[in-house]
């Protein structure tokens, strides 16, 4: 194994982060045990910190894999002295050691792992955490902070999920084609949740966020590479690109959010928008419509409007109508009502908003009502609605933005 450039510790850690998912997936396949694979990789990383001081090897993933496999065998041999159960495991692993892991094949291991982590037999909130931990390579504290959960709680959630995989015999395999309709929605939901956790301003650690959005896009890209021609996979990928293209324009210099109509559209990533549109076209050509493709089409209409006033709201209203045939949730209804209001009918939009149940503490509902009310000239009511929105708002930047909107309202005519 050739060594090159001397490496400071943070360069080594960057390599760990980049290679973690790939190496771990191969190790899980090799050991058949997530916890053991994680422990062995941890051991290998500790070894690498020393060994790589003089230089990072040409193929760090292969180096880590080889060392981690040896560490896994050591761990199992030690345990075998105490438990019968580990003796056959040690024998199996000695056998498997001969055929060295090929890294191209390991990409498939990650796909296997996504389906394992998103298995319907695992609790939904654990699926996201487990996917980020094992496929994405985030640390437990990072995941805990991204989801605003105490670290011991998150650690326990992960331990429980890993134990269930082992004890209940959840397999490491990509479902057969006929099983995909049943299994794919959970995987796509987890990926989109990871993306939204990174994209939304609601909570959590700001440093982890961009990592979550790019990780979600990376996972969907892997899924699309390995299971091509799945319209909703491509649709989700398109949707995430079409949103992420606006990422830099969504915040001002101090990190406060900028709403869509007020964003500098020249700061949007036109290359990423083109990519999203191309993907969406590919998905639509497969003639398997679905909710991610519809949401991507809505995002595309926003991305393609040269100015906010040029937005094709009438078309967006139609798209929300068809989205509701798949997901009829209060937030989707609210978005549809906003689109109706923006399409030039704030009166009907407002009536639709007032008919939605269960969003009383949702700042966006009150802000949307405030906007529709101000369009209708009901400035006093609009002011009350903005105050309500401010009271419900979970973050300071969002509150500041709403306070500016409130201040911008014209003086009450009476």
């Amino acid at each position: 194994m050739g060594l090159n450039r001397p490496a400071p510790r943070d360069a080594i850690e960057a390599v760990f982060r980049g290679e973690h998912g790939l190496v771990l997936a191969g190790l899980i396949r090799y050991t058949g045990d997530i916890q053991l694979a994680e422990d062995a990789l941890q051991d290998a990383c500790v070894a690498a910190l020393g060994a790589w001081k003089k230089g990072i090897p040409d193929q760090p993933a292969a180096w880590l894999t080889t060392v981690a496999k040896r560490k896994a065998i050591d761990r199992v041999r030690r345990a075998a002295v105490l438990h019968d159960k580990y003796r056959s495991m040690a024998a199996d692993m000695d056998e498997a050691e001969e055929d060295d892991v090929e890294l191209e094949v390991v990409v498939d291991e990650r796909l296997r792992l996504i389906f394992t982590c998103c298995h319907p037999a695992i609790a939904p909130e654990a699926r996201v955490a487990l996917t980020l931990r094992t496929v994405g390579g985030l640390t437990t504290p990072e995941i805990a902070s991204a989801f605003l959960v105490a670290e011991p709680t998150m650690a326990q959630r992960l331990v429980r999920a890993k134990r269930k995989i082992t004890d209940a015999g959840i397999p490491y395999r990509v479902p057969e084609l006929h099983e995909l309709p049943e299994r794919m929605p959970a995987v796509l939901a987890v990926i989109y949740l990871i993306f939204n956790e990174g994209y939304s301003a609601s909570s959590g650690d700001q440093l982890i966020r961009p990592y979550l959005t790019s990780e979600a896009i990376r996972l969907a890209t892997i899924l699309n590479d390995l299971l091509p021609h799945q319209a909703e996979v491509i649709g989700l990928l398109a949707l995430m690109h079409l949103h992420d293209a606006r990422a830099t324009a969504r915040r001002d210099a101090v990190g406060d959010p900028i709403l869509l109509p007020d964003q500098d559209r020249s700061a949007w990533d036109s290359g990423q928008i083109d990519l999203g549109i191309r993907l969406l076209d590919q998905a639509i050509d497969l003639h398997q419509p679905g909710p991610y493709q519809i949401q991507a089409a809505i995002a595309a209409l926003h991305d393609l409007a040269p100015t906010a006033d040029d937005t094709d709201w009438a078309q967006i209203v139609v798209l929300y109508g068809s989205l509701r045939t798949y997901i009829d949730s209060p937030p989707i209804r609210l978005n549809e009502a906003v689109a109706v209001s923006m399409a030039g009918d704030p009166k009907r939009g407002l009536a639709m908003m007032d008919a939605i149940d269960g969003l009383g503490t949702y700042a966006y509902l009150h802000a949307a009502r405030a906007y529709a009310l101000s369009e209708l000239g009901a400035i006093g009511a609009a002011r009350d609605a903005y105050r309500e929105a401010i009271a419900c708002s979970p973050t300071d930047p969002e509150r500041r933005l709403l306070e500016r909107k409130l201040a911008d309202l014209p003086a009450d005519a009476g």
Partner: protein
Amino acid sequence: MKYALLIYEDESSQPTDGSPESAERYQQYGSFTEDIRSTGILLGGEALHPVDTATSVRVRRKERSVTDGPFAETKEQLGGFYLIDVEDLDRAIDVASRIPGATTGCVEVRPLIGWD
């Protein structure tokens, strides 16, 4: 891996013995059992009498207490079980979903610890 497939059903909505519905159920269970026996995954299984035949036994400080009725009063009761040996949970779920009772009640899939 070995699994217990525990069949829970609402006893009050079961077809009465001797009715055509009941005969059909027996027939469905018969052909399902034969099917998994012939593929070699069946380890065992039994049907249970209704919970009004149940007796609960507890021993506390060496004192034995015997009471009428099941351990827990629930809407759905354990009515029978299969023990199977299949490759993994997905296969166990496939088998569980073919149990006639899955269409009216619920089948709980539980891995066996297996001491051997």
